[in-house]
């Protein structure tokens, strides 16, 4: 076998150290730091995506010419994650409407109540 004759695979070691550092930074940001919540959430989600990238590229050989699979693995992961983003963001977006009216009466007088509510708390 031509490849991987090395005793210690350096890219795996580097990937492992990077993952450990990113996990610790994310945990520190969430638990210890006084950063604003929005920034913490954005920051740790970016760190999670970077860590997923480490797994895919450094551990899972997602791009490997000898596989003969071309861009298929990469395309599968890219589309999977794109769908994941659409599903999560889309669900949150759709379900962000109409929360306040859930516990009033039956479906019949929902509409009336809704109208009243929107008049009552128009700034809401």
């Amino acid at each position: 076998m031509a490849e991987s004759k090395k005793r210690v695979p350096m890219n795996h070691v580097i990937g492992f150290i990077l993952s450990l550092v990113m996990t610790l930074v994310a945990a520190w940001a969430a638990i210890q730091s006084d950063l604003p919540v929005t920034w913490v959430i954005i920051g740790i989600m970016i760190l999670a995506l970077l860590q997923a990238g480490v797994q895919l590229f450094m551990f899972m050989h997602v791009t490997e010419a000898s596989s003969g699979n071309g861009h298929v693995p990469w395309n599968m992961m890219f589309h999977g994650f794109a769908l994941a983003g659409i599903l999560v963001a889309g669900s949150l977006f759709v379900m962000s409407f109409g929360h306040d009216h859930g516990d009033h009466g039956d479906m019949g007088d929902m509409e009336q109540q809704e109208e009243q509510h929107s008049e009552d708390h128009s700034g809401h």
Partner: protein
Amino acid sequence: MAAEELKTGPLEYRTQEGQMSIMGFWIFLGAEVVLFATLFATYAVLFGRTADAPLPSELFEPGIVLIMTFLLLTSSFTCGLAIHEMRRGSVKGLIFWMVITLALGLGFLGFEIYEFVHYAHEGATLQSSAFWSAFFVLAGTHGLHVTLGIGWAILLLIQIKQRGLTNVTSRKFFIISLYWHFLDVIWIFIFTSVYLIGMVI
């Protein structure tokens, strides 16, 4: 690419069957990403709907979650080392790192079961609220995948003892390594968007 066998390159890629099986597994992993995406979406929508059950910020503890994360992260690393050894042609190295991977995976499962039992004692179960249903289904589906992966790897370890490294056995080990790394990818997102965000908000 003809059906004949290549003479160089990793064993698992030398036949067209091996290449196709691995490509098929990547397609399966794409579907798995979407499966977990639906569970993440459900969790995100039901976040905060704890009803009378305890809040996540009351129950989530950084210590145990970090231990679980490091166990799974290290197991992903040792699984990578196992494949590295396999590609060097060392069955011994492959088995050694694979057994360590499984031990770490079992440790992870042990902590997860302990955690779930602990939450149940504190009054957070699958039935107690929409939030906790979504939480247990999401984390539980991941835990189930880890359990399946451990069983699968044990069967492959028995097979490699009997048959040694061939095009077929190395393809099977390569595929389970993809599966195992994938479980860590999912866990990174559970760790971040469930536990860390649950502790921040």
